[in-house]
Each structure stands twice: as C-alpha cells, then as structure tokens.
C-alpha cells in the first residue's frame, strides 16, 4: 500500500516528525516499510525566482546575466539558455544544491562575472510534463504566475512529499487505505485522529433511478445521481497525490473515484447516467457467453461465476473489477451515477481470476471490505464533489442492503493479558491504548468489556485485543523468560529419525558427500531410466500446478536425482564423485486415513569413482554391521541396473533395497561416461536398533579348518555359505570366504572356493573327532548340493 506523508497529514498531525521517524513508528506497529522515497530529494536548494533584470554578459556572447529576486533576496545567476526573459518565474538552484540528476551547484566565476547558482531545466530536476506542463521544454522551465518568489520549487510542484510503500498484513483490509493507515499511525503516535469531511450539499434532482440486486453476491449497494457534472481536470493536489501512488489523473469524476478508493479503501465507480437503459441498474450474475467491452479496450466473454452491473439490456460493468467502456465518463457526460457497494470476496476473486484481471478495486474486494466502508466511501466522494462544486448531488440515495455499523463486544479476562504476554500491563494502560484505537473499554469485575468498531472485523476474541494492547504497549517491554514454568517431557527423537542421523554419520566415514536434491522430477525421467510402460515406478504423484514440466511429478525413485548430480559434476570436470542423500520418494498408494500418498525415506548412494561392485557392497555390509543386522543378497533384475551386477538387499525375507552397477544405457542417458555404482536402502524397513546385552566371552577354545572345494563357476558363494551354516548346528561359529580361484590348475568352467571354518562349543572343548565329523558333514552336503569336489 502506497501512501504519502502529506495525505496522512490530512488525518493526523505529523508536525515535528521526520520521514524516518514515521517509518520507524510504522515498523513498530506491524508494517514493513518496503520503500520510502522523498520526492523533493535534490530540490532542497532550488527555489522559485523571478528574473528582474536580464543583461548581456560583457565577455561572452552566448551568456546572459540574470538578476533573480528570491522574495526579498537577490542573487546573480548566469545562464546560456535563450528562452529566459525579464519578468519570468524560474527554478533557481542556489549554491550548495545537489540536484536530482546528480549535478552539484557552486557559486563560480564565469568569464569575470559571478554566478551564484544555476537556472534549471525540467530535465535537471528530473521531472517531466506529467509533473508540470512543458517541463521538458528546451531551455529553462518557465513557471506560471501561481508560483511565489522564494518558494521552494518542490512545494510549488507539489513534490514536497514523502512516499511510503508499506506491506499490509492479510488480516487488515482496513489498512488498504490512507484513512486506515493514518488511524493506526495516530494511535501509534498517540496523536489525535481527524475524521475526513463527510458532509455534502444535496439538491432536489429530478432524474429517476432504479436499482435491483438479483445476486446474493452483492449484500449492499448504494447509488446516487449527480446531475449536471462539470468535467474538468482535478485540483492540483488531487492529481499530484494520485500520481504519487501510481494512478494517472484523467478528469475530476474519475480522479475522485480513484482518490476515494485510495483514501477510504472503498472501491467507487461512476457510470454515465444517460447511457443506462431505462435508468435502471441491475446487479446480477452474468449469463454464459455474454460479452462486455471494458475501459481497457478488451472485450471479455463472461460466465455465470462473474458478477455484473447491468442495465435492462446488457452489462455495463464488471462488478468490483472494471467498468464498461460505453458507460464510462467522457467529455459528453452530463449526469452520472455514483456506485458504492459491497461485493462478495470469493465471487470477485473467482471472477477476476477467470478473466485474468486484477485491479485496485478487485484486490480490495478480494481482501474484504466492510459494509461501513461503503457508506463512508459514498459520503466521502459526495463531500468532495460538493467541495469542488462538480455537480448537483441528488438528495435521494438508493440503498439496497444493510450497513452493519454496530460495535461488537469482546470480553477480555484481565488475567489473560499476563497469562498470554508474561508481563503485567496496568488496566489503565490497557484502556488508554484501546481508546486510541477507537475501542471503548470498561472494567467490570475481573473482565474488560471492549466495544470494537465495525470496521475492525479482525477483532473477534480476547487474543485479538491482547495483540492490539501489546502492539502499542511495545514488544520491547516484554522481559524474556525461558519456559521455566513448563513441565518436562521425555524429548528426543524416534527410532527412524535416529537411524537417519546415524546413517548420515556412517556414510560420511566412507568419504561420500551428502547432497540435497529436489523431489520434483520430469516425467521424461522414466524413459531415461528404461522403465517399461506399466512399471509401478511410473505411477507417480503429479502436481496440478507445477512450475514447469521438469518439476511436475514427485519422484518415485532416488537414482535419477543422484545421477543428475553426477551429471552436473561431470560437466564441470569433477569426474569422480561419491555422493549420498537421505531423501523421500512418493508412492501413489493412498492406503491411509488421510488419503495421502506414501512417503518413504531412502538412503541412496551413487559413485562414479573407479570402484567395483564389491567396494560398494562393502559399504552396505558396513551399514549392516553398524545396525547390528545381517543383510542377504539375491541377484536381481531392475530395469535401470546392470542385468548381471545387481542384488536385492534382503533382511529376513523382506527386500529393503538393492545394490549394483547402474545400467550403462542409463548412465549414457544422463550423459555420464563413467561407470556408476549405486545402492539404496529403505530406512523405514529397518528395525530399530536395540540395546544389546553383552555376550560372555567364550570359555573353551575354538578349532579352525580350511575347506577348499571345486564347483561349477555359476555356483553362488552366498548359496554355499547358507548351506554350510545350515548343515551343522551351533558348533560352527563362523564361515569366512578367503579365496576364489579360477585358472590354470582348475578345470575350465569351474572355480575353486576356499573357506575358513571356525568351530566352538559353548560348554566344552571340541574333540578332534567332533570337528572332523562336522567338517565331513559339510563337505558331503556341498558335494550333494553343488557337485563340489574336495580340492587336495
């Protein structure tokens, strides 16, 4: 919301306050000052002067010496401009001026004659024709006779003002007006708030007007005829204020509708009375495909969601958004209808959205305008029309609907202030602050009864009153405390969160770097990952309104995100990277009470370093041992992984992840030339880490045997280890693979596998026979299961 210092001054006396002090006060009561601009900056030493004498420079043909009257004081200024003349009023920049265009002015000697300043062009003051007619004339700006000798040029031009851009909080529609902001400022400064002039002279106007409201989206509608309007440019200060807030002045009627919108926060509209068929205004929903040509010269095709103002033939305006062109005020307008109305917030929002328009009026309706504001707005514009003598105001004002101007009572328990804020605020202070806000407060027993004016729709509960109190009492008066009066709870974090943290710690010890990637992915990723049609991973959660196609689905796998990181690094010559992320995948499986997609936390790891499958599997095994778990590995076929170098990671009989080499076609699809190895583990599928009791150290010695067998090269070692473990009971303490050999001494197509077996009994020393017996059983089982032969 843009507001100027002078405009605020209409409502609150700001004497003695600098712009910065006003900005600081706004900040302290809850407004962010996004911008603050002193329009007169650079014009401090520029004043209106009259050229009382003009003479040729004795030593320079092109220069003239001007004697300038600054209102009692006279200076001599030399100029090269040719458009000056004796008697002209001109802007004179005096010694020490630092002009808006950056020029610094000093008294100087020009060819033997002193020049005590400079006469300015519009360009040097950085103003154009919109600020002053013919400002950009070639030469010095010549001022009209309303200027006074010695007057500050900024004051003459109406630029002696400061423009504030304030961020308005969403719950305070009343702040979208100079009126509302000035009231807050007055309360903040504890200065008197001056109500604007709201009374006007009405006449007996004989022009008939009828209004019918057919839609529930218009709870209140005022219409008033103004007869015999004299269209003209607005008074200078009105124009200047509109320009300061970014509105182009047009004519006195249109300007006043805008002026009142800005000042009172009430959107206003004026229709050309004589164009309205049968002089009847109908407020109704548009019919399908109805059309209207608006003031912006666009033709809009309407639908029943849009509220229109119509006459008996056609729409004459989009309610609360924009007026129809044909019915707007123009040079031939004689009589007008002023509209001040309340339209439903949601209806205006939907309508404006569906048409793709947002106007100063629609944005105010979208935030909400209180009914009292429609009454105030109407009175204000009529008061201004009356003041500026623009036309005859009809004494008949049509009003459809009710104005809710009743104050609301909110009862605040006195002890609630201390309970909420943690400090005592005296009852006297509370009442005094509320009074400044026009809230009438009275203590009755343990409570304060507050009468809240209708315009403060945001105040409904005691908490809202407490907020007002502390806002003006000052947050800096609160003495910080540290929850000393709260009860303790167990605190900490759950198992999954602990696991996640531990994973990150463990993964860092491998030298991998944690990354953070977006969960948004492009649907084309599924193709890059070679996923066939119908793959469950293609069933992604889609975003209705994505930023772009590349960010339009939630990821169903982590590998794509990590491949993209490797790709980016590869493109920057970081060829060997080792990264991990604990991230979420989103599964379109809404089997929960909130009907939300399933979210799984995945630990994913990717390396483009020169490693092999076993280096990466060593990491998953390290994790298993840190978690105190045993992972099993089953060969696996996953579309985006190498068909022969990939294993499911299995815990118990549940797949919890996989590890392997990324399919070379996939790495190529991500423009990565290196081989990549990848693993992921679904952390949600890991059991919580339990506190383990210590196992007593063994009392009896262990016995070791090496076992080397030759088997077919396709036999999987994992399967052999499983069989070995199952063959003899507890006495086998450990099986360790220590060699795999294929080569000259072994028959082609076979391999030699060597294990170290460790036996032990908990309650006795093993005998030689027991060990031999176990060893032979294992050998026999390997022979029968895998056609293994003992290698001598």
């Amino acid at each position: 919301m843009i507001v100027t210092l002078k405009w605020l001054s209409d409502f609150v006396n700001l004497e003695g306050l600098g712009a910065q002090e006003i900005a600081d006060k706004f900040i302290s009561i809850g407004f962010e000052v996004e911008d603050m601009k002193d329009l007169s900056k650079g014009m401090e030493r520029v004043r209106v002067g009259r050229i009382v004498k003009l003479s040729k420079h004795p030593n320079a043909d092109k220069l003239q010496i001007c004697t300038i009257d600054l209102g009692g004081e006279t200076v001599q200024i030399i100029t090269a401009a040719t458009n000056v003349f004796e008697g002209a009023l001109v802007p004179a920049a005096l010694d020490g001026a630092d002009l808006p265009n950056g020029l610094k002015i000093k008294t100087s000697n020009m060819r033997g004659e002193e020049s005590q300043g400079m006469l300015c062009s519009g360009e040097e003051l950085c103003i154009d024709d919109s600020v002053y007619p013919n400002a950009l004339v070639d030469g010095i700006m010549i001022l009209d006779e309303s200027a006074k000798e010695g007057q500050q040029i900024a004051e003459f031009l109406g630029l002696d003002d400061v423009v504030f851009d304030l961020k308005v909080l969403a719950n305070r529609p009343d702040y979208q007006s100079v009126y509302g902001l000035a009231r807050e400022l007055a309360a903040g400064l504890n200065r008197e708030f001056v109500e604007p002039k709201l009374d006007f002279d009405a006449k007996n106007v004989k022009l008939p007007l009828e209004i019918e409201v057919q839609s529930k989206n218009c709870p209140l509608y005022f219409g008033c005829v103004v007869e015999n309007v004299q269209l003209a440019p607005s008074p200078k200060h009105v124009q200047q204020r509109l320009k300061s807030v970014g509105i182009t002045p047009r004519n006195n009627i249109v300007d006043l509708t805008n002026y009142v919108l800005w000042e009172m926060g009430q959107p206003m509209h004026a229709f050309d009375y004589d164009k309205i068929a049968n002089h009847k205004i109908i407020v109704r929903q548009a019919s399908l495909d109805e059309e209207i040509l608006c003031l912006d010269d666009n033709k809009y095709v309407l639908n029943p969601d849009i509220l229109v103002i119509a006459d008996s033939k056609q729409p004459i305006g989009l309610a609360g958004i924009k007026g129809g062109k044909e019915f707007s005020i123009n040079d031939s307008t004689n009589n007008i209808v002023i509209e001040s109305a309340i339209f439903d917030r949601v209806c205006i929002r939907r309508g404006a959205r569906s048409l793709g328009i947002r106007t100063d009026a629609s944005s105010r309706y979208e935030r909400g305008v209180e009914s009292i504001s429609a009454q105030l707005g109407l009175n204000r514009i009529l008061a201004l029309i009356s003041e500026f003598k623009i036309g005859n105001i009809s004494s008949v004002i049509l009003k459809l609907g009710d104005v809710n101007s009743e104050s609301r009572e909110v009862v605040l328990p006195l002890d609630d202030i201390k309970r909420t804020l943690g400090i005592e605020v005296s009852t006297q202070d509370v009442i005094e602050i509320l009074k400044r806000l026009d809230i009438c407060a009275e203590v009755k027993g343990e409570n304060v009864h507050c009468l809240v004016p209708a315009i403060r729709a945001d105040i409904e509960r005691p908490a809202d009153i407490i907020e007002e109190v502390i806002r003006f009492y000052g947050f800096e008066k609160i003495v910080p405390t540290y929850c000393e009066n709260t009860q303790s709870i167990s605190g900490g974090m759950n198992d999954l969160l602990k696991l996640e943290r531990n994973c990150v710690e463990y993964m860092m010890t491998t030298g991998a770097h944690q990354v953070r990637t977006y969960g948004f992915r492009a649907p084309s990723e599924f193709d890059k990952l070679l996923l066939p049609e119908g793959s469950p991973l293609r069933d992604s959660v889609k975003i209705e309104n994505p930023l772009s196609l590349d960010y339009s689905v939630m990821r169903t796998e982590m590998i794509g995100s990590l491949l993209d990181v490797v790709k980016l690094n590869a493109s920057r010559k970081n060829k060997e990277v080792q990264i991990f992320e604990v991230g979420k995948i989103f599964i379109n499986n809404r089997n929960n009470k909130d009907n939300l997609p399933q979210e799984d936390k995945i630990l994913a790891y990717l390396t483009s370093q020169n490693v092999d499958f076993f280096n990466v599997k060593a990491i998953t095994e390290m994790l298993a041992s840190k978690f105190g778990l045993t992972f099993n590995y089953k060969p696996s076929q996953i579309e985006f992984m190498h068909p022969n170098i990939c294993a499911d990671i299995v815990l118990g009989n549940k797949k919890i992840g996989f590890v392997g080499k990324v399919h070379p076609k996939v790495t190529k699809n991500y423009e990565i030339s290196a081989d990549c190895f990848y693993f992921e583990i679904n952390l949600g599928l890991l059991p919580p880490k339990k506190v383990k009791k210590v196992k007593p150290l063994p009392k009896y010695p262990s016995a070791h045997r090496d076992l080397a067998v030759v088997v077919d090269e396709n036999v999987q070692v994992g399967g052999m280890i499983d069989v070995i473990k199952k063959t003899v009971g507890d006495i086998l303490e450990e099986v360790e693979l220590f060699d795999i050999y294929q080569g000259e001494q072994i028959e082609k197509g076979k391999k030699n596998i060597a294990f170290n077996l460790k036996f032990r009994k908990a309650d006795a020393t093993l005998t030689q026979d027991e060990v031999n017996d176990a060893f032979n059983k294992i050998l026999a089982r390997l022979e029968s299961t895998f056609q293994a032969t003992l290698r001598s």
Partner: protein
Amino acid sequence: MDKQIDEILKNAEAQISQAKDKQELTLTSAKFLGKNGALSDLMKGLRELPNEEKRSVGEKLNILRDKLNALVKEKNEAIEEAILNEKLANEKVDVTIPVKPASFGTMHPIEILKKDLVDYFVAKGFELKDGGDIETDYYCFEALNVPKEHPAREMQDTFYIDSETVLRTHTSAMQVRTMESQQPPIKMISTGNAYRIDEVDATHSPIFGQLEILVVDKDVTMADLIGTLDGLVKHLLGKNAGIRVRPSYFPFTEPSIEADATCPKCQGKGCSMCKETGFIEMLGAGMVHPKVLEMSGIDSTIYKGFAAGIGLDRLAMMRFGVSDLRDLYENDINLLKQFK
C-alpha cells in the same frame, strides 16, 4: 686336557666369527656343540678318566660349553642385526611424495544447520517430530485457521496435488498433527521441506527447509517465546546477538510476531546485507491461536502455546556465506567438500 679345551675355544672363536649367515653358523656351531662335535668328543672321554679328575674336568667342560653357546648366541644376534639392518636399508620411502588422502565425506550445509538446531532443542528437552511433505488441505490450512478462500492462502502460493491434497507450504502443518495426537505438555520441533510456488533464483527456491517450534502448556507466555527465540539467535549468531520483535499477522497465531536477528555481518551497525538496518528477517512466530488449540482438541482456557517457523535455506546462506541459494541445491562437489 686344559690345552685341548683352550684349543677348541680358540678354534671356535675363530670359526664362529667367520660365519657369514645363519646357515653357516648352524654348521659351524654343530662342529663344536653338535652330537659329533668337539665338545661331545671330550665329554665322551670323560668316562675314561679317573674319578678324582672327572669332577674337575667335567666342570671345565661345562664352562667350555657355556662359552661356546655364548659365542654362537652372540654371533646369531650379530647376523640377525645385520639382516635387519640390510632390510631397513632397503625399505626406503620418499616421505615427501604428495598423497591423495583418505578422507571423510561431508554433510550438506542445510543439513548441518538442521542438525545443529535439532541438537540445540533436543538438549533443551524438545521432542523431534517428522511429518509428510504431502499434506491434506485440512492440516496445512483449515486446522490452522485458514479456511478455503481465506486471503491468507494467497500469502503462500501452493502446489496442489488435488483439491484436498497439497505440498505443505510450511512445517506448521505438524502443529495440529502433534496436538491431535497428544495432550499438553508439548515441546515439539519438526524439521523438513516446505514448498511454495517460487521460481528458482538467487534467494528463492520452490523447495526449502523449515524448522517448526511448538510449546503448549498451562503457563506458556509470549515472554517464553521471545526468550526461546533470543536464546536460539544467541546460539546461532553468538552471545552478543539478539532479536527485535515486530507485530505481524499469521492466521494461526494471535498475537503474531516477526523476529529480526542482529545482522551477523555488521553486528547491528548497518551494512549492505541488512540494508543498513542492523537487523535481518529471521522468523515468524506467535501465540497459538485459540481456535487452532480448540480445533486440535486442546482446551484454550487452560492451555496456551507458542509456535515459530524458521526458514533454513537463507539462514544457511547467511551462516556459510553463500550468496546464491542455487549453489546449495546444485551439489557441486567442490562446494560440498568445503563443509568438513
């Protein structure tokens, strides 16, 4: 006999000292100490001596044996020493050759910050809670006093999955989930991603990290909120830092505040980072709105609460001197490596 002993000793001294390696030493020592060695020969002769001599000769032979053993042992040690020296002499490395060090990985900067904050609050007795990135309209908005069509919905441009499902625009969605699942006392923090429609640029990202703080109990006040936030800022920015509180508006808190922290770059003096104000925007907070407590099944006449939400991305940028937010999501290894 004495002569013989002297001779053996003399020969042994000469020959053993000549042994070049362990093998030669073994052979040489066998000549004197072996089964058929010189000492053995003399021992055998002992039996033929008269008893009165046996004893003195026997003693002399024992001394001889000890001396021979000592000679062998001494030589053996000398040889081993020589072997070791030779080995050591050959085991040379140029210790100045540069190496590629075995290294630890690193944590992502935003995660470092997150962990730091979680540790801080967990140590203060808070419980960390985790929530979904995809949330129902109810938990993200309705239950936080933001009904449909409420203008505040426009404060946060929302990604929709469908009309009732959104990517959460704030971690505040966890407030109601927490309050619904337990009665006070509640001291909760939650970290995670939040999503808003923002084009990616130097200071915006459609996905960003947030920390949510919620305390609900009988005697919880705005003063506790301010103290908690002040403590947090001191933890993050140093003991001389502090907060400035401004009134604000959030539909789910009343009164609502925004807290600015002392600018870490200029310590409050005013600089380009804080636009000469000495403060930087840090977080939004407030006393939990009574309506929100009630909708979550908590009696607002007995309990009060405070809540705060802190964006982590910009805090991480500030903390680690990152000037472009995109750098934190690009994951260039040369940047990540610096966060040892």
